[in-house]
């Protein structure tokens, strides 16, 4: 376009460039730390700003795209993943991120999560789990613990919550990690690995809702002296200690970790290398093209119509 600025030296991506609107979150909300860690990780990795796409459903956490100065889309409740998948599959040049809450991801969006995972769509999904519906002001979420009192469970939650880590490990995600909003360094490490992973990577971030579920993490809350036990990963160094360390490529071991008692452990549960749907579909396209050669749309349509004569 005439009026566009000429392509200059690639500028360095800074936190400042990435900062957009001031978040509308409540002061003290855990999601602030997630945002800050995301900024810093992108800054570290120097992903071109125009290639970053953040996509979210609906919820407090899902307001994320407004707060990142990059391409973004704020969608409808529970369907961020298929939308992000459409972006990823049709635009392999982009870095696609999806953000959302526990309700958005595990309740209304729970099936899309499983299917995006099994198809191994190349994108990174960050779930900010506050164990409650924040935006709609305190209803039971699928991760609300039994007995937690909400406006839809005035006598305490009755339904057994889902175990997010089990869901992720079962579903077929090729990178599954768990971190905590107060552990910025750990969070950044997880973000970095997730972004570098080719395939469907998910991070479950425990993030506190200071309004509707303050102190959700009292048990095992690192800020309050609780435990933040980090998974020790195998170093494959042949030492006896290594025997007991976690093999991230072992699906059953990941499931066993997921089965551990609250608060469980943090870090990478599972990581594996499996062809992405992006690659597999591209392979089909390439094979087809290599068979038929480079033909114009008109040529191809003519051929197709000839066959119907």
């Amino acid at each position: 376009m005439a009026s566009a600025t000429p392509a200059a030296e690639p500028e360095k991506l800074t936190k400042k460039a990435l900062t957009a609107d001031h978040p509308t979150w409540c002061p003290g909300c855990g999601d602030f730390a997630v945002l800050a860690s995301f900024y810093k990780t992108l800054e570290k990795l120097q992903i071109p700003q125009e290639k970053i796409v953040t996509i979210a459903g609906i919820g407090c956490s899902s307001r994320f795209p407004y707060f990142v100065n990059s391409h973004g889309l704020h969608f409808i409740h529970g369907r961020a993943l298929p939308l992000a998948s459409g972006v990823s599959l049709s635009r392999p040049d982009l870095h696609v991120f999806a953000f959302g809450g526990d309700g958005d991801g595990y309740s209304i969006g729970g099936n899309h999560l499983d299917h995006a995972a099994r198809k191994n769509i190349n994108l990174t999904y960050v779930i900010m789990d506050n164990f409650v519906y924040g935006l709609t002001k305190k209803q039971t979420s699928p991760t609300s613990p039994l007995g937690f009192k909400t406006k839809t469970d005035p006598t305490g939650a009755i339904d057994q919550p889902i175990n997010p880590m089990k869901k992720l490990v079962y579903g077929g995600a090729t990178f599954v990690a768990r971190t905590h909003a107060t552990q910025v360094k750990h969070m950044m490490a997880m973000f970095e690995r997730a972004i570098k992973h080719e395939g469907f990577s998910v991070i479950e971030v425990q993030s506190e809702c200071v309004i509707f579920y303050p102190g959700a993490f009292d048990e095992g809350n690192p800020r309050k002296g609780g435990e933040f036990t980090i998974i020790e990963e195998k170093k494959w160094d042949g030492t006896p200690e290594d025997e007991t360390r976690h093999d991230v490529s072992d699906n059953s071991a990941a499931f066993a970790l997921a089965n551990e008692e609250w608060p469980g452990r943090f870090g990478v549960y599972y990581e594996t290398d499996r062809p992405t749907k992006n690659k597999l579909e591209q392979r089909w396209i390439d094979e087809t093209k290599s068979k038929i050669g480079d033909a114009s749309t008109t040529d191809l349509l003519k051929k197709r119509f000839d066959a119907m004569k």
Partner: protein
Amino acid sequence: MSATATSAPKSDADDPTDSNHSSGDITDAVIRFAGNSQDGIQTIGGFLAKLAGRSAREVMTYMTIPSTISGGASIFQVHLASGEVLSSGDEADFLFAFYQHSYDAHLSSLRDGGICIYDSDHVTPDTNDKRVRHVGVPITSITVEALGGTARDRGKNILVLGLVTALFQLDRTKLVTLIEGQFKRKGDDILRNAMVAFDAGYAYQVGDLLGESFNLKTGESSGADHVTTDGNTALALGLIAGGVRFGAAYPITPWTTVMEHLRSELPKHGGLFVQTEDELAAVTMALGMAYAGHLSMTGSSGPGISLKMEALGYGTMAELPLVVVNVQRGGPSTGLPTSVEQSDLLQALYGSHGDTPRVVLAPINVEDCFHTAVEACRLAKKCSAPVFILSDQALATRIEAFPEPDFESLVVEPELALETRPEDFVPYPLEGETRHAPPGTKMAGGKYPVVTGLEHDAWGHPNGSPEMHQLMMDRRRDKISKLAEDYPACEVFGDDSGDVLLLGWGSTWGPIREATIRARDKGLSYSCLSVRYLNPLPNDLADIFDKFKHVVVIEMNDKGMYGFGQFATLLRARYANPKIVSVTKTDGLTFKIKEILQRVEDILS
């Protein structure tokens, strides 16, 4: 058969073949094959339709699908003519009955004086019935005899094709080429069997039994290289011509074959069609592709379309270009999955919560499925909004022959606009067209856009102020209503003024036009019009209506609470003109010509 042969024709012309019977020219024949779906009677019809395309004949087919999962009673009807074919035929001229149940169920579909050819191995005809002529052919046993034991009666269909070829003096050479083309892939044995069956049928000389055969004349006008295909295929290819390269959907009858075509075809064009876990994911993924800068599409039938309504509202709000195909079927709910109906028009307009102005188009025949798809692509890009194509089960599955489209003038090569956007870029200018900056685009101003389903300002930023909401509502509505300014003028068939205007939309066009022709033949002052643009409506309708005493809207949906079909409801709401009245029905069948004429007469008297 055409008017020149209103009873089974006896021609005075010399018999050109050496058969032992007379032969007469006909210009038009409706042939119904009734059997079980596993007999492959669709195959007979398919070959005849293809032949029509190759021999300058017109054709329209019609079939039923049994309610059993696989197998079960089924019919295939072929209407062949040297002139224009507007419907699949109210009544059959010829019936091929494979079983007693076929005979019993379909004899009444034969017109007076029609010819019933039945499999004498299975059918005991009612010989007292003098209304029609009966000819028994031991179809099963001659098939078994020709093919030997293991094939059992498989091949009956091709044998009957042979019978038909001889009876109507069709072009044997062309047919053999078609059979070869179809069966070669399946292996030499299969092809050989098919040819044996065909020849046995061809040799059987059913004309001798009947005392006559028919020379179904080839057409005069257009060339002999017509394309022969069904509506769903034409639609899928039209979408590709219009520039669609990406899309997502979930299977459902009768939509499924569109997606099957796209899934197979798009890789050739460097594109991709995704089968998702459900319809919610499908429309959502398609919106993601649209957001990514492509013209994308999704589609479904009834139940699946209902599931897409929330996300389609997002498409309106975020102003994303998306083509949405609804191949309508009988409703409500699961309804009649394999029957035709036009009962999703108002849903296309009003199915989402809030005011969601949408473009809605409907193709009138198989050829138009292609062209409407191209037009839908153009409009989706022009107004950056969801555009509905309302096809239906009848269009989807029926076969017609039509000239190859003019690709050079129609084909649109898609492009991804990733150039850097200037500092003054706004995606939703209060005056002017929507222009997105898809991800990957650099923003010279340094500020990147967020697309949202919340109300927003020109920049796309959430803004729920009273003024902004009102302005944006105006913007979303006006850009759609403005589209009508560029429509081609509506073309009335018949006279421009008169007593009665029959008005339709979608697949009723054939029967409506045929009804108009018949009425005019009887000296009645009837004209007709089919509206392809259902929302926004063409602006010239008011003037057209002014010139007729009655406007009768013919559609296949319910008459509602107050006696008006869905399209009639729209028209009355716009024009508040009481002369707009309705003829509707929901029996799962396409309109018969005489049904239209009778119902219009009833309503006007």
